């Protein structure tokens, strides 16, 4: 990690810059062409009242002030953070477990891998219909398993205490994706490390804790950040189970608005209520929160991530 003072570039610095430039050039171009303008524009909009068409009226900080007194804003924020707090750790554990399973030296492992990965490529639109059936409190498979285990009959989509957990479960169907990433990193762990540990008498669990785990920490960090970002921006999985469209109108976003996620509420403001200014203000609040979260995770990661290089 170098931190050369800004206006004092050494010869080596300059040379490194020159060599790096062509590599990152595509991103730089894309950033200026497709990203910077929309981001700046949305910041500008957050200080205006704007319907999407016509003129924008400057309103100063009133959008932001209004946010603080909007109960649905706080509710959607709570829903999102609660969901993320559940989904990220659970998703991480599930992905690692799946990756370990996909890494087994079994002849036909390719078939198992494909089967585990399959749900994450099913069209989400159709998958949510299926999942609603599986989560039926009386006739669904999930509650059937629960009754076998003498558990309670949970009203997954009808009880506001369980709706977010339902979405977490639905999200785990897509765990095949992150599992693949972990599989790639598991495969990069040199096997001679395991062999020498086994010779020293280390059992499977100890080998996992002391060899595998440290070496996959860079990927764990990736999964944490990726999962957190996806978590706070969750949109579709909440929108479909709830989209009751009788006569073209929708009911609340889940019982007691428990599935009103932040980005979904943002979207409603932008395109259903035609209040793009308010939506943009919401977006920037989310931006600040996400950056804080990400920085916190990155700082925390210094204590447990192990990089071979740099």
């Amino acid at each position, binding site marked *: 990690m170098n931190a050369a003072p800004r206006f004092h570039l050494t010869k080596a610095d300059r040379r490194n810059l020159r060599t790096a430039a062509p590599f990152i050039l595509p991103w730089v171009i894309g950033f200026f062409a497709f990203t910077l303008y929309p981001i700046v524009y949305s910041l500008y909009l957050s200080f205006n009242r704007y*319907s*999407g068409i016509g003129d924008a009226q400057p309103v100063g900080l009133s959008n932001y002030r209004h946010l603080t007194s909007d109960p*649905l804003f706080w509710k959607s924020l709570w829903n999102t953070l609660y969901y993320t707090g559940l989904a990220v750790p659970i998703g991480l554990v599930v992905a690692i477990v799946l990756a370990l399973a996909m890494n087994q030296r079994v002849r036909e492992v390719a078939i198992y891998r494909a089967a585990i990965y399959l749900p994450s490529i099913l069209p989400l639109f159709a998958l949510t219909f299926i999942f609603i059936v599986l989560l039926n409190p009386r006739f669904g498979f999930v509650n059937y398993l629960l009754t076998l285990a003498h558990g309670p009959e949970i009203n997954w989509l009808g009880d506001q205490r369980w709706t977010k957990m339902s979405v977490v479960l639905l999200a785990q169907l897509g765990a095949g994706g992150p599992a693949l990433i972990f599989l790639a990193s598991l495969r990069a762990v040199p096997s001679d490390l395991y062999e020498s540990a086994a010779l020293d008498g280390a059992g499977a669990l100890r080998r996992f804790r002391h060899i595998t785990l440290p070496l996959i920490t860079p990927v764990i960090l990736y999964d944490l950040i990726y999962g957190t970002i996806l978590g706070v921006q969750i949109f579709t999985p909440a929108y479909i*189970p709830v989209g009751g469209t*009788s*006569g073209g109108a929708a009911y609340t976003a889940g019982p007691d608005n428990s599935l009103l996620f932040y980005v979904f509420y943002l*979207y*409603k403001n*932008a395109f259903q209520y*035609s209040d793009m200014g308010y939506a943009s203000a919401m977006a920037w609040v989310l931006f600040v929160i996400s950056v804080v979260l990400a920085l916190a995770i990155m700082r925390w990661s210094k204590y447990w991530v192990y990089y071979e290089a740099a």
Partner: protein
Amino acid sequence: MSLLSRRGWKASLVFASIVLAACGGGGTSTAPPLAGCNSGTTQATFWTSHTPPDSDSLKHIVDAFNKQSTTTCVKLVQVPGSETDIAKLTTAVRSGTGPDVYMLDRFTVAERAAAGVLTDLSAYGASSLASNFVSFAWAEANFKGKPYALPFDTDTRALYYRKDLLQAAGVDISALDPAKGPPTIDMIRTMANKVNHKTGGAYDVVGFIPYINQGWHYTWGFAYGGSFFDAASCKVTPNDPKIVQAFKDMFYDWDKALGVDAVQTFLSSYSPPNQPAQQDPFLQGHLGFVVTGDWVLGQIATYKPDLAYGVTYIPVPHAGDAPATWAGGWSMVIPKGAKNDKGGYEFMKYITGAEGQKVYTKETQHTPTIKSLASDSSLFPGQHQFFINQLPAAHSRPPLPVGAFYWDQLSTAQDAAVRNTADPATALKAAADATNAKLSAFCPLT
């Protein structure tokens, strides 16, 4: 340097293939004229979010129009995805790539007009068409005294009941004959409770759950004679005492009597979200009564043609009260910046006129908004006639620039009342405050 030339090679290869790809994917400006168009006509695009079979009927009307028009030829484009409609429309309109005619939910006309998405139709002489349409439909199509849409179809709601289930429970269903006028809520409650049935401690048949399907806040608010908007003060009034009473009776107390959690479990089990119509609990015999719309007639005919059911007015709180229902439906609009607005208007007049609506009603069994068609009973076989008869007395939701927001606020209040997490008066006051805060920016509205 070798580095640059190597990379340059790759880059130009990529660039070339992209250009080739673009050539494959573009080129609408030089498209040949549509088949079925008369020569000398200019094209008008018409967007709809409807899917087959409804869109098939729209296609028929478009074809018929194209045949007889010497100035305009319409191209129908399906743009599926209902909620995201306005995202697509807004982005398209603001950059001049929008359609000439758009099929818009009539309830949202005021909102979109206030947002500046729609073209004022008075310039085309639309105001002269006012008397052709049912009054509530025309009211919804106007904003600040100007017409922004031409009404297309509509729908009304009524109380459906299962003759077989009720009779088996010993109920005298002759009391439900529409000729006797709207039934009272008390009467329905007594009948419904006879039908309730539990197996293993959980409901498998419930007589009547007032707030599902089309038993909305608006439905019961209108049934109780409440008013949702006061034009004089430019304020929404969901905390109208009659509406509060409706919430208390039909949502709060009703659910409490049946058992809040028990009902929720019943609903999640037999009526989960996005269920295909053939599994509907009313069709499957899990509900004795249900408030729903006229489109269900078609579903019954398709999925359970031998169903023993009847239709009557939505129940009212006191004997002798006037029946009440509300109507939704669609309309045709011209978005701002339409390139062929005149051609678009010509088409709009046709499809929302008697000719177009007749075809649509015949083929889809929806309800027309053209007054003259309402008296043609050949268009409304069976129970559909009852819904047509309700039209003159149907309400429409107040056309507000915050219509969607107001609806969501009312739904939140309804949900709180149903789950007994807040008392109706408080919940509705919160809805009023939040909505009026947004509405005030648009006042006055006349």
